[in-house]
């Protein structure tokens, strides 16, 4: 294995060794949402014709779990290495900026995909799943996870304490994922909140992802693709620039 492959493997092993916490836990949480919201709202909410509310909910929950876990993986790995001081072992190596980026973001993408696959696998027990356009599903899953893995990298570099990272997670990532249309179609919102939702990049990730399952969405999947790709490139560029500058890791 070359240098970046070793780091990628180490990052995967890092979360896999505690898979109960990093994979099984998030899957269980998503299932609880599915059971409780699905049970409570099944007969009250109809988003699209011919699609049950529970079926509508599954892709949203899978994407939400994917995004949150991709973010959690790179950010918590970095902050732990910083706080423990063992980041020095990496800083002493000839690994380049690109190597770091590929390894950290790659592991984040893999964790995100593993968790969302887990959500689908368990969901299949409760409801029928459909996969109308698999390529769209894969594209949005990979781009969303890359975006959040890179965002986690930035947050992990920036944060000096677990506290600051938790703030980033609770005040930025959580609200943006919850308010992105996981549990509802934004067409059911008042016009003002529809406009606000359109400014949230997370909305496009969920909406585009869902299009791959049902072939219907709130906005065109091409628009979603453009927004998500732009956000992904922007965030990745910032993450690479911070890594290159050694932001908060090389004095």
């Amino acid at each position, binding site marked *: 294995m070359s240098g970046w492959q*070793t*780091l990628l493997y180490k990052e995967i*092993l890092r979360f896999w060794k505690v898979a109960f916490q990093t994979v099984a836990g998030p899957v269980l949480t998503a299932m609880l949402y599915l059971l409780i919201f699905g049970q409570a709202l099944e007969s009250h909410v109809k988003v699209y014709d011919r699609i049950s509310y529970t079926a509508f909910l599954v892709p949203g929950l899978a994407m939400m779990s994917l995004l949150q876990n991709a973010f959690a993986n790179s950010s918590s790995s970095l902050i732990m290495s910083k706080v*423990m001081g*063992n980041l020095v*072992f990496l*800083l002493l*190596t000839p690994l380049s900026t690109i190597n770091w980026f590929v390894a950290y973001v790659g592991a984040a993408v893999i964790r995100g995909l593993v968790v969302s696959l887990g959500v689908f696998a368990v969901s299949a027990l409760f409801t029928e799943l459909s996969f109308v356009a698999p390529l769209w599903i894969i594209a949005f899953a990979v781009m969303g996870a890359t975006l959040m893995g890179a965002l986690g990298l930035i947050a992990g570099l920036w944060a000096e304490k677990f506290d600051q990272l938790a703030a980033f997670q609770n005040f930025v990532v959580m609200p943006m994922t919850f308010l992105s249309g996981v549990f509802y179609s934004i067409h059911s919102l008042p016009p003002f909140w529809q406009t606000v939702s359109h400014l949230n990049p997370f909305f496009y990730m969920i909406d585009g992802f869902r299009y791959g399952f049902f072939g219907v969405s709130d906005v065109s999947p091409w628009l979603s693709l453009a927004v998500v790709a732009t956000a992904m490139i922007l965030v990745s560029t910032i993450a690479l620039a911070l890594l290159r500058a050694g932001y908060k890791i090389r*004095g």
Partner: protein
Amino acid sequence: MSAISFQSVSKTYPSPRGPKGSTFLALDRVSLEIEEGEFFGLLGPNGAGKTTMISILAGLTRANSGQVSVLGHDVQVDFAQARRCLGVVPQELVFDPFFNVREALRFQSGYFGIKHNDAWIDELLSSLGLADKADANMRALSGGMKRRVLVAQALVHKPPVIVLDEPTAGVDVELRQTLWQFIAKLNKQGHTVLLTTHYLEEAEALCGRIAMLKSGRVVALDSTSALLKSASSNLLRFKIDSELPKALADKARVTGRIVQFPAHDALEVEQYLTAVREAGLVARDVEIRKADLEDVFLGVMNKNSGSADMEAGQFSDRSPPGKLAPSGGSAVGEATSGEAIS
């Protein structure tokens, strides 16, 4: 070609105490050349800039000006090659709690792109007395064992230049012996070794050349033997129970009840002892000993105490009891974490 080269290197940090925006000069135009195969010692009080120099060398921090290279590879421009040539044992006892010893060493090899490194890893483990700990989780190891793993991690890629930043701070005698035997062997095989330490005895025993650093400047640089020769002479050492008169105390190095005078010949010894007796004091446990590196070190540090920095006080002759180790000097101050930001 030099194994390690510092050319007019300066580094400032934001001052932690002063007003906002003020800076602290950690290194002031330091130049130093270390040749291939040398065993080189970098000495200096806490905050002198030793760790800053090593951090710049290792690419952990960047110099504000000047150039640093390892075997001709600039540490910024040609960082990948420079880091391949360099094995650094960090000062802090850090580890990754997710892995066992062998995994940690395999990963470290992998970061350098080295495959199938188990033969060398096994050799490192047995040389450092870690063979039976290979499968132990890092968390389960004692401090001394963790230190050994740090040394092994620094050497997985067989670097020609080895840097040890206070590797024996707070470790037991056995590890010190094992470690120094191993490092001395590597040095004999041609590896260049750069060592920072607080234990002057170690530097005296191991290093061929020594640089003394103070307030970010090199204040002495010579072979160990030449430095020892430069120390004036022998020392008259005794204990007393009450304070010396000021006239005498000014000429002596006083550490609690221990008094030391530099003495060139028997006449001087007699004069000092007479003066003590006439002051109504009793000198006990009188002995005459050879000057060692600690005396050189203290001499150099005092000579350069013109700048009114905090660290200087710690090494002045007026040190309060306990600040300096009594006689023979196994330690100059304790290794503290007060070193310049690492």
